């Protein structure tokens, strides 16, 4: 009985530590701005829309134009957080999903190496959509949605 109580105490301690660490992580994480270029025809988007677009299940905008979601590199912290918040999975957990899409000829979203490159691309491609740390947004892009605390 005493062993069981110790095990329960240990489990509760671990859970509290985990929840505390996660809360600190979330509180310290930057907000993510979902952005398009100034000339983009896209005026609003929901988190559900983003999941469809970034998993490339939805590949056209309602006006029939090809949708171009843009990612930051797989090891980027903002990308990892966006993936978790919007797609519900880490980039690592999505590898089997993208492997399966490869065999339908559907490739993952385009990757740009930096926030500056992403902003520059959005500025010239009205059908593109991307995300940045809120602190990286400038007047070359338009914010549609802000994710995070």
């Amino acid at each position, binding site marked *: 009985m005493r062993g069981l109580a110790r095990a329960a105490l240990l489990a509760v301690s671990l859970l509290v530590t985990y929840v505390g660490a996660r809360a600190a992580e979330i509180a310290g994480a930057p907000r993510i701005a979902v952005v398009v270029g100034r000339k983009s025809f896209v005026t609003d988007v929901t988190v559900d829309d983003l999941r469809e677009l970034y998993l490339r299940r939805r590949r056209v905008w309602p006006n029939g134009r090809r949708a171009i979601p843009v990612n930051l590199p797989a090891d980027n912290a903002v990308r990892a957080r966006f993936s978790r918040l919007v797609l*519900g999975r880490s980039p690592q957990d999505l590898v*089997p999903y993208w*492997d399966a899409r490869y065999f339908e000829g559907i490739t993952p979203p*385009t990757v*740009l*190496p930096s926030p500056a490159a992403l902003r520059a691309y959005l500025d010239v491609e009205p059908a593109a959509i991307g995300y940045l740390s809120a602190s990286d947004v400038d007047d070359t892009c338009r914010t549609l949605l802000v994710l995070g605390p």
Partner: protein
Amino acid sequence: MIELAASRQPRVAAVGSQRRRAATAGRVGVALVVLVTAVSVALAGDADPGRDVGSDRADGGYRVGDTGLWLGGYATVEAEVPESRPALAQLGDLGFLVRWELTPTLAFFNETDLEDTVTLVEHAGLERGSRIVLLERLYLDWTPRPDLTVRFGKFLTPFGIWNVIRRAPLTWTVDRPVATQNAFPDHTTGLSLIYQTTRHGWSFDATAYGQGQDELVRGASDISATAVGGGRVVAGHTLGAAYVAVGASAIAFENRDTDRWEDAYGTDVEATLGGNHLMGEFAYSRVREPGARDEWSFYVQDVVPLYGPLYGVVRLEHVEPRRGRVVNGPLIGLAWRPLPHVVVKADYQFADHEGLPSERSDIERGFLASVTLFF
């Protein structure tokens, strides 16, 4: 003394056979390591981080300028060391993929495979196969609305998880579970409506499909149908840190070989968490014939990340076939992805029966390995 010699002889022969088999397995292992090393060196350029610019590492294939044309493919070398028949190494599948986006809402897709090319058989040498060219998929996708796709042509029957991901680079084991093989035709030639959406964090997929003719270019399916009607629904959502998707499938088809209608129903689950990949499927099928036995089967498989790109695989499978013996087929294996486009797999398949050469089971006890390259 004579009796003793007689009784010992088979044991000596068995020991010799086991040693030969171990030596064969060793040679196959060395060959796989050499092949992987060669492929790794040849593709060293692919590991250049600069290549990541513009695409994910999971990306692949070749886009031909701005034409909307995408080309891809894969090749597999397999080795089998079953306990009941000679070992063999073979060039498995050689597949070519083409997707051509004619407009943002209209796309053509084709997969053509070359199978049964060359096989190296223990004690028999090199055997040339019939080099069958199979038309695996040929369809046109039209997207009248962002959430709806109309597919027309020959496609993989969307029943369960495995049938649509059964290519070697997509699976964690060399062989697919038998539980996913015998209940329905692998291919459907006809029309499919695919609806995909996400609402309030729930992802939904609903597919309805039908076939009213013979399979287009037969030969790719073990079961061929003259008429098919079916559907599949999947719902997915995050569950804590995991992502879980649950699906259900149903199909009715007229078997071309027996002219009988058969029905199959299935349910499946898939979950990912921290690199773990859990999947399971259950399928039940019946023939619309008085007195015919029903068939049911299931498998559960978990993939666990071990070290970097090395994964461990455990699978439990149970098959209650319409004819023949009940089979339990546990499997343990390793899957290694040293480069984004190279997959190496080694499995040991167990089975709770002795597979006799004259009475081969769909689940054979033995060692299986493969190296797959997709490009």
